[in-house]
């Protein structure tokens, strides 16, 4: 396979002038003062080497300021490396700043041609693609109105449509999917999926680890301008999460975004992540998701089918999750999670992990999660319910710890721990 993109020991240094002489006067004064203390060097990248094969989708992850965006800007040639070499084979298009150079007084149509030419397209090429662009943006008759009357979402759509119409060999994406409404995001993802199927090379920079996992076959983890990890997406993301998790527990401060991501990841993977008791603290309920399917309510029913919120150990527990699908959804995955009131993640099953395949959802309905006999011991519990797409990367609706129920002692007299684990005792005396 041919290499589409290669970094060979690339370093990028920024020089930050705290008091840069921006005029001749300052320059002259500075010359006499011999004041060089105001110069500071910042290495955004240091000796970064990697290669991307043609047709590969590479993700770049890392905390803010790790050099992700600098890498993309080096590929697009907005910046030049301080040392090292960058080889780019093919036409590059960057979804970095959508609609750069849009002029508010010009119409959408004029802006399409202006923006297209900024991206290096010729007039004939633009004319051919114009209809396709307008169709993708769904702007219709707005296309002949001045851009200043557009909503920011409309401008985004226009920018995205133009940038992807370039038909690049290498597509660079930087966080653009974080903007725009959900429907538009899905449309963008679909178009990016098209690119991938057509064997284009994609470099994707994001904080959204779930999207990275969904899109990328390989991931590079940058930290402080150096490569900390490289390999398969799941593996590197797990490494990264462990790292930021450790850091967070050290600092006793998890950014809410990351926390949410971690929670989402747990749910996606569909397995309980071992949490040391020190970290298990009750968390406030929250909700997220794109809402093509909505979870409308969750009911708890006892063995006779009556609503209740208190169960006894060893009896039947049924949680009925009501949903409404606003459109036909193929192969959804439902999941639930049970937490004890002190934050311990007790269980987190989902339909996919249980091999319970659901071919589609349409309209209203409900799904029952039945546990019999209930092994939970006395205590108060929080309950999450969620519905995801099949790869478990896109939450349609996630209700995190929004419900609660109580468990009281039943026939089983166990009182210590989390679970009643059926068991026998056998005593032997002598030998």
């Amino acid at each position, binding site marked *: 396979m041919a290499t589409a993109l290669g970094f060979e020991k690339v370093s990028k240094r920024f020089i930050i002038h705290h008091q840069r002489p921006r005029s001749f006067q300052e320059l002259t004064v500075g010359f006499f003062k011999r004041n060089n203390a105001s110069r500071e060097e910042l290495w955004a990248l240091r000796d970064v080497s990697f290669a991307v094969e043609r047709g590969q989708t590479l993700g770049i992850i890392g905390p803010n300021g790790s050099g992700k965006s600098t890498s993309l800007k080096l590929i697009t040639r*907005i910046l030049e490396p301080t040392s090292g070499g960058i080889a780019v084979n093919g036409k590059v298009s960057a979804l970095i700043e959508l609609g750069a150079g849009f002029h508010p*007084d010009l119409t959408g149509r004029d802006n399409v041609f202006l923006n297209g030419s900024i991206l290096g397209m010729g007039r004939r090429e633009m004319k051919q693609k114009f209809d396709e662009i307008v169709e993708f943006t769904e702007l219709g008759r707005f296309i002949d109105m001045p851009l200043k009357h557009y909503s920011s979402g409309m401008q985004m759509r226009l920018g995205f449509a133009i940038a992807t119409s370039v038909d690049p060999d290498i597509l660079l994406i930087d966080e653009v999917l974080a903007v725009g409404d959900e429907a538009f995001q899905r449309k963008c993802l679909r178009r990016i999926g098209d690119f991938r199927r057509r064997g284009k090379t994609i470099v994707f920079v994001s904080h959204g680890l779930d999207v990275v996992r969904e899109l990328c076959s390989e991931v590079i983890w940058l930290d402080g301008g150096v490569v900390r990890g490289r390999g398969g997406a799941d593996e590197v993301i797990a490494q990264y999460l462990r790292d930021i998790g450790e850091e967070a527990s050290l600092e006793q401060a998890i950014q809410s975004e990351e926390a949410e991501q971690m929670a989402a990841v747990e749910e996606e993977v569909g397995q309980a992540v071992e949490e040391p008791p020190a970290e298990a603290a009750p968390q406030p309920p929250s909700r997220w998701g794109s809402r093509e399917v909505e979870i409308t309510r969750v009911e708890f029913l006892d063995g006779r089918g009556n609503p209740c919120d208190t169960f006894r150990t060893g009896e039947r527990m049924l949680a009925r999750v009501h949903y409404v699908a606003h459109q036909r959804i193929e192969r959804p995955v439902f999941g639930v999670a049970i937490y004890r009131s002190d934050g311990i993640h007790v269980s987190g099953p989902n339909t996919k992990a249980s091999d319970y395949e659901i071919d589609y959802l349409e309209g209203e309905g409900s799904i029952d999660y039945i546990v019999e006999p209930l092994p939970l011991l006395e205590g108060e519990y929080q309950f999450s319910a969620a519905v995801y797409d099949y790869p478990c990367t896109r939450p349609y609706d996630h209700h995190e710890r929004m419900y609660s129920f109580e468990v009281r002692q039943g026939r089983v007299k166990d009182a210590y721990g989390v679970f009643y684990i059926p068991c026998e005792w056998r005593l032997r005396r002598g030998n």
Partner: protein
Amino acid sequence: MERLRELIRYRELVRNLVARDLKARYKSSVLGFLWCLVNPLLMMAVFTVVFTVLMPNDIEKFPVFILCALLPWNLFSSTVMGSVGSIVDNAHLIKKVYFPREVLPISTVLSNLVNFLLALVVLFAVLFAFRVRLTPWALLLPALILIQVIFTLGLSLILSTLNVFYRDTGIIMETVMLAWFFLTPIFYRMEDLVPRYARLMYWVNPMASIISSYRVILYSGASPALDFLARTFVTALAFLVAGYLFFGRYSRVFGEEV
């Protein structure tokens, strides 16, 4: 060579930027693009009043005399002043998209050139109104314009780069252009100067040779000093090459300096 080929690939951008420039310039005024015709006439009137009524001189057909020099000078000064800030003013683009940066000063030069060509209509109307008989030497006009554009572009490339690193280049240039205006034979004849200074002016000021050539071929209908013109052409080319190399060397860091 690689850079030139890339520049050609981006010709559509140059065209769009020129169009945007021209649209923006005349969009919000009542007279619109007529201004590029009226403005030279008004300036001609001002100079004529000053130099025939207030300070009479013996120059024949003064309005033609002044207009032949004033129009090319306006082309020069508005291009230089416009392109000094062409990189810095487009920082939002430069930080976000890659394209050959020389597109920006080039499009400033070209949009001013379009303006000038429109204003030439006025010049020929005035020549006609004053019954100035054109001679075949007037056919040198395109060549003259070319020399001037080459020189201006070279200068623009240098100044727009300097302005990225030292923002007061633009301010200094305002004064420089005023001095340059007085040191170029626009409202006076070369012959009016002390001969020693006249020769010096020809040597150090390419614009002096260019502007007086305009006047010679149109107003006097005579042959310009071809040897001087040839030397000016070489100077202009040297400026363009130097400017292009200078610009090319520093345009790599525009992305982080603007």
